[in-house]
């Protein structure tokens, strides 16, 4: 299995551990990830709020670069990049008026020929859970996790086409496969405040506090995420949430790739577990990994 890999800006800075653990897991499972050379930012939320055409041109430029590598499918880990790449791809497929304009901007014809996938999708639907189960060497038995999908992994469903809109289960299935116990909770697709992290921090603190509260009420020992922005809002801001709402949350927020990596027997130090603000290591003293 060979894929063109689009890490996105976060995975090279605030979410380094996501990048490290993704590569480690892919390596262990024989999935080849070839980083798109000289990839550029997808524009994220600021682009589509400010300039519509720019928010299409930036992702399309990356997709063209991927196509030039030899028409691989593109894999990305960031939910926001995934959403932007997919939306741009779909518009290039269906909307001729926009396609013409974007082609003029990037100076290259593109008809939406590259398929975009999230790494979660690759792991569950392409590699397959049965296949994965054969590779698992250490079951994470007794670890109760709350799988948090956030906004852009499932929405809008006609674009992402990944999972159920209101009750997604891809990550839950994955966690069951590696032996962890996913809790049933209603906040799987609630919003954490996302891009307001710097601009309207009070909103982020409230929404993230609600999510942490619900997860801890349902008895989760950790929250599992697939988006670097969700992770930073829930993990990095957790001390601030505790201070503002007088709570005592101490819930590690982990990427699904880190837990899969642990179950595959990859060394802890190679999964970036030391990079979290809320230390996840005490968790694995209770659970023999």
């Amino acid at each position, binding site marked *: 299995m060979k894929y063109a890999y689009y890490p996105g800006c976060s995975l090279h800075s605030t979410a*380094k551990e996501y990048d490290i653990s993704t590569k480690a897991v892919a390596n262990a499972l024989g999935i080849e990830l070839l980083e798109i050379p000289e990839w550029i930012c997808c524009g994220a939320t600021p682009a589509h709020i400010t*300039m519509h055409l*720019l928010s299409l041109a930036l992702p399309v430029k990356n997709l063209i670069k991927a196509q030039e590598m030899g028409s691989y499918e593109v894999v990305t880990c960031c939910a926001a990049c995934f959403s932007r790449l997919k939306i741009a791809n779909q518009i290039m497929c269906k909307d001729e008026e926009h396609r013409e304009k974007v082609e003029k901007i990037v100076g290259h014809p593109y008809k939406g020929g590259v398929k975009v996938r999230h790494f979660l999708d690759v792991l569950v639907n392409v590699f397959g859970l049965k296949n994965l189960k054969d590779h698992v060497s250490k079951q994470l038995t007794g670890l109760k996790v709350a799988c948090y999908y956030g906004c852009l992994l499932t929405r809008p469903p006609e674009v992402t086409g990944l999972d159920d809109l209101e009750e997604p289960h891809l990550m839950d299935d994955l966690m069951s496969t590696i032996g962890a116990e996913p809790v049933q909770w209603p906040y799987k697709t609630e919003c954490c405040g996302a891009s307001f992290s710097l601009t309207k921090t009070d909103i982020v603190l409230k929404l993230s506090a609600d999510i942490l509260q619900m997860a801890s009420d349902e008895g989760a020992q950790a929250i599992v995420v697939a988006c670097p922005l969700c992770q930073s809002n829930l993990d990095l801001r957790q001390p601030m949430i505790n201070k503002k709402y007088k709570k005592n949350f101490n819930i590690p927020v982990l990427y699904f790739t880190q837990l899969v990596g642990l179950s595959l027997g990859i060394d802890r130090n190679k999964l970036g577990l030391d990079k979290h603000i809320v230390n996840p290591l005490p968790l694995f003293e209770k659970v023999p990994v």
Partner: protein
Amino acid sequence: MKWFISHETIKSPFLKTLERDCAEKISHCYQCGKCSAGCPISYKMDYLPNQIIRMVQLGMEEQVLSSKMIWFCTSCLTCTSRCPREIDIAEIMDYLRRRAYRKQMTPLAETEVPLFNKIFLRNIESNGRLYEFGLIGMFNLLSGELFKDVSLAPRMFLKRKIGLLPHRVNNLSEVKEIFRKSGKLGKAKRDRLLHPKLIFLNLSRKLIERIENLK
């Protein structure tokens, strides 16, 4: 809330322009309120999403564009994916924000989001990839909250989650070209970081607030 809506307002081309530009049938909305029920930020808004849509239907351009509500949308797409009339409400919010910014109708208290967006895009234009340290520093400086989140910085550096220097891509001219052309084709102004008047007014507003707090 009571408004007098004149004949001219109802006849104004606002609704038609918006429907043409976004390719969304806003006139289809029958005010079920599902968008507002699911909106995670509705507790903070001056108008709810369904109210904004109704105001658009009635052609109330001025009230819509100067509302705080449009700047509170996180683009989580809950409204879009639940709308029974299949209206992409989040896309309409994007459109309204772009229009409000172009017409300089952003309320003074809501300058942070457009300021952040402009700094973010300028950051990408000059580096190709996001340079977080530059983004946060510039944003704090221009929004007048110099020491916001400073307590997080040491941990971020220690864990090597944020770098002091940007990672530039080699083909920067390509990136600049994309920005230039999209600005030209989309008829969007991108030369200025943010209307300097707006930055100045916002900074003075914060200073006055601070002085009043001291009293």
